[in-house]
């Protein structure tokens, strides 16, 4: 091919490339921040407690078994009810003999990704978390040694533990390891927002798209509600009134951790009313109003909190965006419990 012809082809290819880049700058271009919210490909693997089908099956039975409580009537699933987005729809949880707990029940949805655990982060691992409510006098009121005796009195469990933990005795550690293994399988399905992230521009409404821009911009939600689960797994004082010191009781010495609680995931959030660590806000509209102007100012208030002055339309757009975070998940299977 003569050199002049080759140069014309090069110029033509350059122009085609330039036109392609130019067309990417139109309104059809994906929102530049969507990539920050892409779901991970796999559930985290825990080296100290690798997930196996046997552990998951055992943990599923334990999770739904009220015999694992001192009263015999409270299971993990009593508060983490799969029919209520793995929470309980109550402002604050109810424990042993009707004892009203001091905080709202957090969901276990996508909990595999969310260390540390509890509203104050006092459990570093999901295994440690599982032991907490089990042995707490206020919650399931099941001392570790009593739990082991009860498990050993049920032959079906003895067999299931032998399969799940070959060579290991039944203990509160293996009970917690099995429950944690099951909980790590509770993962939300793809929501309309995920389809938008993947490139389907028609997956969410124009209002929801404006809400996403507000979420990352004027409303500043993404300062803490970041990543695909919409949480930084961090601790912040967002100005809820009350005397609960939250994270500061666990990690003293940092002013900003006074009244600070763990940022909750926003996945399936429209199914998990009421809201906040104390369940004090009944609706998502009330939550947005709180962030807009309803918080109390104090030295520990997170520096990202400020008056937003959102318009009614902007609040509606934020709600439309939050609705896109809800997935249609497969119904949880309630297992036949061993005898």
């Amino acid at each position, binding site marked *: 091919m003569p050199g002049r012809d080759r140069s014309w082809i090069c110029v033509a290819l350059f122009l085609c490339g330039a036109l392609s880049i130019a067309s990417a700058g139109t309104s059809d271009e994906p929102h530049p921040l969507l990539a920050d919210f892409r779901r991970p490909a796999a559930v985290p693997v825990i080296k100290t407690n690798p997930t196996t089908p046997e552990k998951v099956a055992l943990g599923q039975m334990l999770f739904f078994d009220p015999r694992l409580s001192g009263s015999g009537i409270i299971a993990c699933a009593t508060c983490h009810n799969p029919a209520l987005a793995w929470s309980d729809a109550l402002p604050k949880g109810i424990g042993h003999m009707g004892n009203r707990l001091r905080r709202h029940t957090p969901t276990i949805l996508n909990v595999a990704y969310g*260390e*540390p655990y509890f509203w104050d*982060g006092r459990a*570093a691992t999901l295994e440690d978390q599982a032991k907490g409510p089990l042995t707490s006098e206020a919650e399931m009121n099941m001392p570790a040694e009593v739990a082991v005796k009860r498990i050993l009195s049920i032959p079906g469990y003895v067999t299931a533990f032998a399969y799940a933990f070959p060579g290991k005795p039944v203990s509160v550690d293996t009970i917690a390891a099995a429950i944690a293994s099951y909980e790590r399988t509770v993962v939300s399905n793809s929501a309309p927002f995920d389809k938008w992230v993947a490139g389907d521009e028609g997956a969410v409404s124009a209002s929801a798209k404006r809400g996403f821009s507000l979420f990352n911009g004027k409303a500043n939600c993404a*300062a*803490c509600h*970041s990543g695909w689960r919409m949480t*930084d*797994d*961090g*601790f*912040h004082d967002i100005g809820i009134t009350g005397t609960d010191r939250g*994270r500061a009781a666990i*990690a003293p*010495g*940092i*002013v*900003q*951790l006074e009244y*600070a609680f763990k940022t909750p995931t926003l996945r399936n959030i429209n199914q998990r009313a009421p809201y906040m660590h104390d369940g004090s806000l009944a609706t998502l509209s009330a939550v947005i109003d709180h962030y807009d102007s309803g918080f109390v100012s104090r030295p520990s208030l*997170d*520096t*990202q909190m400020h008056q937003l002055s959102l318009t009614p339309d902007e609040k509606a757009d934020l709600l439309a965006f939050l609705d896109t975070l809800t997935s249609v998940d497969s119904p949880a299977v309630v297992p036949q419990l061993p005898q």
Partner: protein
Amino acid sequence: MNPVTLSEIVMNRASLLCLVTAVLLAGAVRAAAPLTVTQKGLQFSVADLSVSKGQIVVFVNDDRTAHNITVTGEGLALNGGLQQPGAEFKVPFAKPGTYQVSCGIHPKMKLSVTVK
């Protein structure tokens, strides 16, 4: 080409020794210089760090959210308080051993520092 004399070989070796010593000293000086670790995307820029005794590590908050530097280990319990976006926090590691660095606000942020 002129033959190389014994005295020249000795001189060359002495020069080489001086050069190697200078390079090693320069390396030692470089190793003692402050090391920078950034905090971005709710992560430290490294998961593990090895430093010399007395070396300073400068933590730079490149996130748009506030962080905290908490250092524990070898009898040390250092709490750096609130670290605003863009702010630096310097930690001198004076005693050999292993230290854990974390963010009190975002406990998933962890860094192990070995001081030799």
